[in-house]
């Protein structure tokens, strides 16, 4: 029985649980819901939950455990040397799985009759599987074939076992729920507890993902720092990776490029976004606001690669021809300025939207108080509304900064990929994110420092943005209650 079919059966048992439990409790009180502890629907939901949830848990555990158990069983077919060496064992297992699934396909496609599978000779496997579109790189060794056949048998019996166990658990859960269903059973509390569990699980997923990302990056980073001294990484001023060996990974040019481009971006985004927000929140008529706000937010919907094109063919040449060359600051179309300005424009809607919400949250009574003292609108905005909204605005700015630091595509197209340490904003530079992409694309060997440096960069980038986010949270928390 496939997983999908099994899920359908479980859903059916769950639906039955709902109907039975609800019907049973209604019969017990003679159709008068006032004598029940909870609404009749809660008894039904309790039945459905008890029938499906434990069964679902068993199924998930089975799905995870089965391959592990199978692996430990077939490993005896492999030669001692292969089984002892983790990398070779991994490869052999992949082969076995491939042959086993090939055999399944061949049986399903009719290329091999089901009863012949056990007696098939290793020499003909490759040709026979080829006819159903399963291409094997080399001839199958007898050990691999034997292991694959064992694997296949065990997997089939596992499949049957899984279906039987899961359905039994579902039915047991249903029976338990039916027995528990009495008028004074607190079904509502039980159902709400399960819902609470679901809510907690949902919030945990996000946290666990972050933990997982950090863990995977940490292990790879440590591997990198095992090959390359950390002092040279963090304090080196030359970045020249060389895939044939002898690389230097000085991180400072990348950090400088990242910070420089982010600084330019924020110098563009913060004033423009903030002024737009002040206009929208304080001066615009409702009609103007209803037109302008969505128009600004359109920017947020433009893919960054389109912004990259804009940087590459419009902003870059414009800055080169009208500023950099006349001022004698260089003749590169790709520059910190180009990428910074375009990233800044990209971030305007984030700042304006968030700041607009924050400014609107400042109580009207504060504005009235200021007007009542004879302040003009502009004085009120500058001296009362903005100070009150400041923590939120700082938070919005830091969030936009995090986004700017993480931006990749616009940097590649607008600022180039040369790691340089220079003060001239009209020179091409690059950022950490661009180098991460650069080190990981193409044919890569995950054992070399040239590739692993990407994880060290990623980890550092993560720490930087994390610190910024924590700072944003701290600022917002510290000043939040000022006008409440």
């Amino acid at each position, binding site marked *: 029985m496939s997983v999908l079919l099994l899920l359908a059966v479980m859903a059916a048992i769950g639906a039955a649980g709902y109907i039975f439990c609800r019907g049973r409790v209604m019969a017990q009180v003679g159709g008068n819901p006032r004598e029940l502890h909870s609404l009749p629907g809660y008894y039904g939901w309790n039945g459905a939950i008890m029938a499906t949830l434990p069964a679902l848990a068993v199924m998930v555990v089975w799905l995870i455990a089965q391959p592990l158990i199978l692996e430990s069983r077939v490993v005896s077919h492999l030669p001692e040397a292969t089984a002892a060496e983790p990398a070779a064992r991994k490869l052999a297992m992949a082969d076995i799985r491939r042959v086993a699934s090939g055999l399944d396909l061949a049986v399903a496609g009719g290329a091999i009759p089901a009863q012949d599978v056990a007696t098939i000779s290793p020499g003909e496997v490759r040709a026979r599987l080829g006819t159903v579109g399963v291409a094997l790189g080399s001839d199958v060794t007898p050990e691999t074939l034997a292991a694959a056949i064992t694997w296949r048998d065990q997997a089939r019996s596992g499949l049957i076992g899984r279906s039987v166990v899961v359905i039994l658990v579902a039915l047991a859960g249903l029976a338990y729920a039916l027995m528990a269903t009495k008028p004074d059973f607190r079904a509502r509390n039980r159902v709400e507890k399960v819902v609470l569990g679901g809510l907690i699980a949902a919030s945990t997923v996000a946290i666990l993902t972050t933990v997982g990302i950090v863990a995977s990056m940490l292990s790879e980073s440590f591997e990198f720092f095992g090959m390359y001294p950390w002092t040279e990484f963090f304090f080196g001023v030359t970045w020249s990776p060389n895939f044939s060996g002898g690389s230097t990974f000085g991180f400072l040019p990348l950090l400088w490029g990242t910070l420089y481009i982010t600084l330019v971006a924020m110098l563009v985004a913060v004033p423009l976004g903030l002024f737009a927000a002040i206009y929208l929140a304080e001066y615009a008529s409702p009609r103007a606001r209803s037109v302008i706000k969505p128009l600004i937010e359109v920017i947020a919907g433009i893919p960054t690669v389109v912004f990259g094109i804009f940087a590459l063919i419009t902003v870059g040449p414009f800055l080169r021809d009208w500023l950099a060359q006349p001022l004698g600051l260089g003749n590169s179309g790709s520059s910190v300025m180009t990428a910074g300005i375009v990233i800044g424009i990209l971030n305007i809607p984030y700042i304006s939207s968030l700041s607009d919400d924050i400014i609107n949250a400042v109580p009207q009574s504060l504005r009235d108080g200021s*007007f009542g*003292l*004879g*302040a003009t609108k502009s004085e009120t905005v500058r001296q009362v509304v903005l*100070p*009150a909204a400041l923590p939120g605005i700082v938070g919005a700015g830091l969030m936009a900064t995090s986004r700017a630091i993480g931006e990749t595509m616009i940097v590649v197209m607008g600022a180039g990929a040369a790691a340089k340490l220079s003060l001239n904003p009209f020179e091409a530079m690059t950022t950490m994110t661009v180098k991460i992409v650069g080190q990981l694309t193409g044919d890569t060997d995950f054992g070399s420092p040239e590739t692993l440096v990407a994880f060290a960069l990623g980890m550092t980038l993560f720490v930087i943005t994390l610190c910024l986010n924590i700072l944003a949270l701290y600022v917002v928390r510290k000043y939040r209650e000022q006008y*409440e």
Partner: protein
Amino acid sequence: MNDMRIVERTVDTHDVKIDAKDVNVHYGTSHALKGVSVAIPDKTVTAFIGPSGCGKSTFLRCLNRMNDTIASCRVDGLIALDGEDIYDRRVDPVQLRAKVGMVFQKPNPFPKSIYDNVSYGPKIHGLTRNKAELDEIVESCLKKAALWNEVKDRLHSPGTGLSGGQQQRLCIARAIATSPEVLLMDEPCSALDPIATAQVEELIDELRSSFSVVIVTHSMQQAARVSQRTAFFHLGNLVEYGETGQIFTSPQDPRTESYISGRIG
């Protein structure tokens, strides 16, 4: 009405400070204030009483043109401050509000320090030449608002950290710091407890020596305690206006009598 404390009711001067003639206010299509004419004397506390929605707050907000900030609001009629029409084209509402200060129902101190709250008005109007003068204004206003002793040691802590009654007195100090000629108070005690209310009422009585005070209140006892003149509003009309003692003891209009004896409202 037995607890009514009859305060000194003699009006010191009889100069008319604000003269309103036939004022009508419309919010969109609804007619909120119908032909109100009132002459508010100088150096007097004038109370506006009446049931909710009777237009007393609307009229108060006409006196410093706070209604200008409401798009759908339309005011006609004549309101003159010292004989000058405040709705005249040449009058800047911002300048007017510096002369006609306002204290609101809910204390609304700015999220700044106590000192900055009080110095806000003098600073934006450029009333002082140096820091010492500003300090002097802040101190004298806080003293007038009977708050100085409580806050003199923490002038630079946030105004929002004060208690409700202290916050309201801070707002009064802030309003008198621009040295206005008229002080409008929109139910200044409705968010305060009885002790804070008593303090603010005492303060209002003292302020009478320097300003003309107009107070909107829901509490008839409060009107009787603090005011010399009382105006009774009902359904957008000014029903009766006169000396406070006379309004409360021998009202001329049956509606006023019903309201103060608790039959309508």
